[in-house]
């Protein structure tokens, strides 16, 4: 076309640069926003996929109930579709840091050489420091907030509290040689540990040699699909699922290899143990035998002693009798002796008396004789002298002599008698002495006998004591023997049972199960995926606003431009330019602005938005660098859409003008006629309006297009604000409502086996101790729920005591908080989100599937408010009748008294010491991680609020600007009339404000729906955001919008001031 024509267009652009810029800016904004947000999710996925590929993140992770052997790894690697497989070892261990803190670490044994060469699966990147070179060195996974004591160069020790530490690690001292990142651990969220307090505080990578068990705990596999297919896509997942299926098939046979290996090992060990048992048993039995013999001997001895003792007693008794008898005999003899002696004495005395008498008589006779002697002598002499002696005398002398002789004889007799008497005396004395002696002897004899008897008695007593002692000893010995033998028996029995059990265990060794898990089981992968989806969902909604507004702004601006240039258009037409040529000018104008705007918008938007959101997610993830790709589909679609719409709008504006004749075009367009408005027909209202308000009301109605555009734009702004703020409310709601209002329990204890009373006194003791206010055993099972509409993962939840469920979980309706009953025999209450997704309300049937894949149809009896995860609360009866099996109550809901984190850690540590407790989870911990996760949404909320502000500014500024431009003359006139600056401003801004106000009101209404939509789109299956918007958010959105309007007014005041009154003198163009 003609040169001049283009010159005209270029001049036009230069001359109306602000208008051109307006279109350019709003196009850039709209397209940048739309394309940027739309391509954020693909960029996030792509960047992450590249990162995964670079770091060779496993596609499949295999776990086995019994670990893997080398052959398993080879077998996996050789499976079709598997590119490479690698065995790995990992274990949770308590690690003591330099400052004395003990934390739970997951220790990954990795092949450091392969890592260094980059050939390993799950490649770790050393960000700082170097790879370990010997078993005593390790890498620590980079954390957002690193634990102190995990810096490069610090030392750590595996705590001695670890069970079987010696069997686990080759050495306990570690030195950190580097900080690493791993795509496997991209997320801050961690799996649960089964030791310590159950929380993984750090991840360590150690040379695999450090972990000294002889099997692998897991196998990582890379599939052949991973390089071509992009992670997070269905194609990728389908392909990997197929590989996983092949591995599951492989598992069916391959599991036996490991099983046989284990059985062989175990059997050998058991056989050793049995031999050992046999030897020990023989020893024990022999020892017992000996002991028994000893006891028998002792018993015999005691019997003999007893016999001796009783003999002794008999002897003693006899001795005592003999002694008595002897005593009696002796006494009788002695008494007889004494009697005899007394008789002898008496005889003696009598003899003595006789003797004395005789002696006296003799002496008398003597004396007589002596007295006679002299006479006799004299006689004698006389006789002798011969004298004559009378016969008498001679008789006297003869008598004398005879007397003498008699005397003599008597004296002799007396003498003899005296001698006899003396003899008798001697005899008597002798007898007396003998008697005396006899007494003494008797006494002595008796005493001796007594003594002997006493002695004998003592002996017997001593013997008895000894015997008793012996008996006691024996009894003791026997008891000892009994207990020893019982003990031995028990021990042996025990050992035997153990051996038998062990044998049974070996015989029972089940075929190990393999768990084939794709990346869908990786916490980071799943959460990242769902977050990326959230962005995508939001990206689908918000930019539409900008897009629409961009369109509206372009339409208004171009209409205004065409109207302004009607004279020129008329002239061109009059000069003979075709309609197309005239229109082309405006199309080119808007096209140029649009294309430039799109280019800039894309250039900025495609980088800026993904980057902002990426960085927002950087709070939660260790992310690689973002790779912003040019996503042609989004870029072109959004650019083309916008440009085409703008062109269409321009065309519309042009066509209506071009319909007029050139002549009429050259005349100024008749100003839009004033009209009475409906309000005037309500005199009550109209009369009460001040004059200037009447003017405003008329003006508002007069410019209908501007009215609607402003209202729509402002409404969009308010709606966005309300959505953004409401989204924050909804999210904040979740945490508070779920964890404080709905879940009354604050801890879940997971048991390894059904917590029935017999086997689990320890657990019971822990649960019933002071640590918990109350507990409730529940069966919790991962399952699915589906209707024809939807299939969703869910958790089947069955309380052991049906009537106590509501003590732990509040079942209520979200609106009105009416309690949802759970007392029917077959009560099945599902959570609200599930109900929404399934499209099933109370009374509707749903199909549920348990963890074993069995399905059953149940009838929903109620729907309860719930925000986090989804549940199907069923009664025991309902479960039994649905699946025909008994629920295993392996989880315990508990209300713990632990308040601080320390108390919780302590409690968890104590709980996990019980062998039947697999895990303890505190809702506080979950709550925290939830809050962290939801923080990322806050960034998005901030972006929304910011964009709402931009939107409000753009719309209000542009429309007010046009408003002022269109009414420049009118404004100049009222200025000339003497309106003060304030009054002029009020004249215009009253309209703007009313429009903004109307827009705000509409926006609040629209915002409620937009919020509901965004909330439903942005939430994932497992979370239901709150549906309510806090009143303060309504107020805030309204106030913010009005504030934006006010700020725009402030800006516009300046352009009002710039209006030159001289304009009023000019004719309208």
């Amino acid at each position, binding site marked *: 076309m003609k040169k001049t024509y283009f010159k005209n267009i270029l001049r036009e652009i230069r001359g109306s640069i602000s208008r051109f810029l307006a279109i350019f800016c709003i196009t850039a904004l709209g397209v940048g926003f739309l394309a940027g947000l739309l391509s954020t999710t693909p960029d996030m996925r792509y960047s992450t996929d590249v990162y995964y590929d670079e770091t060779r993140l496993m596609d499949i992770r295999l776990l086995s109930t019994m670990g893997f052997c080398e052959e398993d790894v080879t077998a996996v690697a050789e499976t079709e579709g598997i590119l490479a497989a690698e065995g790995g070892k990992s274990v949770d261990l308590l690690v003591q840091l330099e400052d004395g803190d003990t934390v739970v670490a997951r220790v990954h044994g990795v092949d450091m050489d392969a890592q260094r060469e980059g050939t390993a699966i799950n490649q770790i990147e050393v960000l700082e420091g170097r790879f370990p070179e010997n078993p005593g060195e390790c890498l620590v996974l980079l954390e957002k907030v690193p634990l102190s004591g995990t810096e490069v160069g610090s030392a750590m020790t595996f705590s001695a509290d670890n069970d079987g530490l010696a069997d686990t690690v080759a050495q306990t001292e570690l030195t950190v040689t580097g900080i690493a990142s791993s795509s496997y651990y991209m997320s801050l969220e961690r799996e649960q540990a089964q030791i310590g307090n159950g929380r993984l505080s750090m991840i360590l990578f150690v040379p695999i040699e450090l972990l000294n068990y002889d099997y692998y705990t897991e196998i990582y596999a890379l599939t052949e699909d991973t390089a071509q297919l992009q992670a997070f896509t269905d194609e990728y997942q389908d392909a990997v699922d197929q590989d996983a299926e092949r591995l599951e098939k492989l598992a069916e046979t391959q599991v036996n290899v490991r099983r046989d290996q284990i059985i062989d090992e175990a059997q050998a060990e058991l056989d050793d143990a049995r031999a050992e048992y046999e030897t020990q048993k023989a020893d024990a039995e022999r020892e017992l035998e000996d002991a028994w013999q000893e006891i028998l001997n002792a018993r015999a001895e005691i019997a003999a002693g007893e016999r001796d003792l009783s003999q002794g007693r008999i002897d003693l008794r006899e001795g005592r009798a003999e002694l008595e008898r002897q005593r009696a005999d002796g006494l009788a003899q002695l008494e007889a002796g004494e009697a005899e002696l007394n008789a002898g004495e008496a005889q003696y005395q009598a003899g003595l008396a006789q003797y004395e008498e005789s002696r006296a008589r003799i002496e008398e006779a003597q004396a007589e004789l002596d007295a006679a002697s002299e006479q006799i002598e004299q006689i004698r002499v006389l006789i002798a002298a011969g004298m004559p002696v009378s016969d008498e005398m001679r008789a006297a002398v003869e008598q004398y002599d005879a007397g003498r002789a008699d005397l003599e004889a008597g004296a002799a007799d007396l003498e003899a008698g005296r001698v006899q008497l003396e003899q008798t005396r001697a005899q008597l004395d002798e007898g007396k002495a003998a008697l005396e002696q006899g007494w003494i002897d008797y006494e002595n004899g008796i005493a001796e006998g007594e003594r002997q008897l006493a002695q004998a008695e003592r002996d017997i007593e001593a013997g008895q004591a000894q015997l008793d002692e012996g008996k006691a000893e024996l009894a003791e010995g026997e008891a000892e023997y009994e207990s020893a033998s019982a003990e031995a028996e028990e021990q042996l029995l025990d050992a035997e049972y153990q051996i038998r059990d062990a044998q049974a265990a070996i015989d029972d060794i089940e075929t190990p199960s393999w768990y084939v898990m794709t990346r869908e089981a990786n916490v980071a992968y799943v959460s990242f995926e769902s977050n990326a989806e959230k962005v995508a969902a939001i990206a689908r909604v918000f930019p539409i606003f900008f897009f629409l507004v961009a369109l509206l702004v372009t339409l208004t601006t171009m209409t205004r431009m065409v109207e302004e240039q009607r004279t020129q258009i008329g002239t061109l037409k009059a000069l003979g330019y075709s309609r197309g040529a005239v229109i082309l000018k405006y199309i080119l104008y808007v096209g140029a602005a649009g294309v430039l705007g799109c280019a800039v918008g894309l250039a900025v938007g495609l980088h800026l938005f993904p980057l902002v959101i990426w960085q927002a997610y950087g709070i939660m993830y260790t992310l690689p660098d973002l790779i912003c790709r040019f996503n042609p589909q989004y870029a072109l679609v959004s650019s083309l859409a916008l440009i085409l719409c703008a062109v269409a709008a321009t065309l519309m504006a042009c066509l209506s003008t071009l319909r007029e004749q050139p002549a009429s075009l050259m005349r100024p367009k*008749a*100003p*839009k*006629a*004033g*009209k009475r408005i409906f309000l005037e027909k309500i005199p009550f209202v109209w009369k009460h309006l001040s*004059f*200037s308000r*009447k*003017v405003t009301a*008329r*003006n508002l109605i*007069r410019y209908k297009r501007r009215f609607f555009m402003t209202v729509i734009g402002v409404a969009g702004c308010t709606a966005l604000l309300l959505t953004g703020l409401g989204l924050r409310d909804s999210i904040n709601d979740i945490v508070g409502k779920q964890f404080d209002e709905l879940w009354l329990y604050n801890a879940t204890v997971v048991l390894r086996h059904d917590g029935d009373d017999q086997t689990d006194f320890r657990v019971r003791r822990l649960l019933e101790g002071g640590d918990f206010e109350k507990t409730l055993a529940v069966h919790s099972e991962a399952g699915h729920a589906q209707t024809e509409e939807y299939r969703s993962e869910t958790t089947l939840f069955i309380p052991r005591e049906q009537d106590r469920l509501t003590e732990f979980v509040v079942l209520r309706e979200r609106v009105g908080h009416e309690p949802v009953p759970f007392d029917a025999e077959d009560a099945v209450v599902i959570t609200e989100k599930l109900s929404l997704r399934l499209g099933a309300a109370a009374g509707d049937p749903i199909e549920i599937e348990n963890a074993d894949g069995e399905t059953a149809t149940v009838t929903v009896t109620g729907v309860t408010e719930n925000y986090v995860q989804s549940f199907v609360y069923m009664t025991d009866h309902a479960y039994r009748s649905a699946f025909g099996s008994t629920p295993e109550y392996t989880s315990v809901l508990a209300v713990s008294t632990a308040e601080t984190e320390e108390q919780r850690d302590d409690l968890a540590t104590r709980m996990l010491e019980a062998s039947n407790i697999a895990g303890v989870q505190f809702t506080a911990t979950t709550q925290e991680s939830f809050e962290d996760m939801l923080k990322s949404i806050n960034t998005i909320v901030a972006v929304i609020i910011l964009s709402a502000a931009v939107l409000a500014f753009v719309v209000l500024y542009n429309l007010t600007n046009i408003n002022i431009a269109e009414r420049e*003359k*009118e404004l*100049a*006139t*009222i*200025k*000339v*009339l*003497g*309106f*003060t*600056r304030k*009054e002029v401003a009020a004249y215009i801004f009253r309209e703007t404000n009313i429009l903004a106000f109307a827009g705000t009101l509409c926006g609040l209404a629209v915002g409620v729906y937009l919020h509901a939509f965004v909330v439903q789109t942005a939430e994932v299956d497992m979370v239901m955001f709150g549906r309510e918007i806090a009143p303060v958010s309504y107020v805030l959105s309204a106030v913010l919008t009005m504030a934006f309007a006010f700020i725009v007014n402030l800006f516009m005041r300046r352009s009002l001031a710039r209006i030159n*009154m*001289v304009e*009023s*003198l*000019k*004719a*309208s163009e």
Partner: protein
Amino acid sequence: MDNFITFDKVCKYYQTGPTRIAAADHISFEIGEGEFCVIVGPSGAGKTTVLNMLGGMDTCDEGRIVLDGTEISKLTTRELTRYRRYDVGFVFQFYNLVQNLTALENVELASEICREPLDPRQVLREVGLEGRMGNFPAQLSGGEQQRVSIARALCKNPKILLCDEPTGALDYQTGKSVLALLQQTCRERRKTVVVITHNQAITAMADRVIHIKNGQAEKCELNPHPTPVERIEW
């Protein structure tokens, strides 16, 4: 009496690029109170500049402008607004009615902001629009619109009435009747009326005629016997 309005060596320059154009180059004249004054001159002579400065819509760069003892050339923007509001009534060439307001409301638009306004209905009646008060400008003829414009200026009860080519957009007859209305207003209400026009014919009806040429008041003549409008022909 003569110096109700005084222009004393007033200058106004416009800078366009490197050249400075003097739109008013030491203009001096005086207008008496209650006079019907016509400022006449060819296009580009500086009439409008004079009008702008007199109407308080523009400021002068040099010289003094005094109205009724007030030195307008010294007023601040705010004072100028008050000046326009209370002291000047303006009649535009293109009427400058607010399209969205009825005739009455257009008048009220001005009366609303004045201290001692005249009754808008009364003024409209006086300008002969008794039956058209409720009509919107689009429903009025050009002459009728100009009458509304004049009514709007009058009802403010200003000290002067400034009219910028009041007949410029009107046909001959209507122009005449508008001029008649202005002259009548001047006579009856003793208002000072300043009419700016390029139409020499109108000068005959003026009490005072000021000829502007090349930014200067070339000639200022008094007309002791102004011709009634009816007799003027152009």
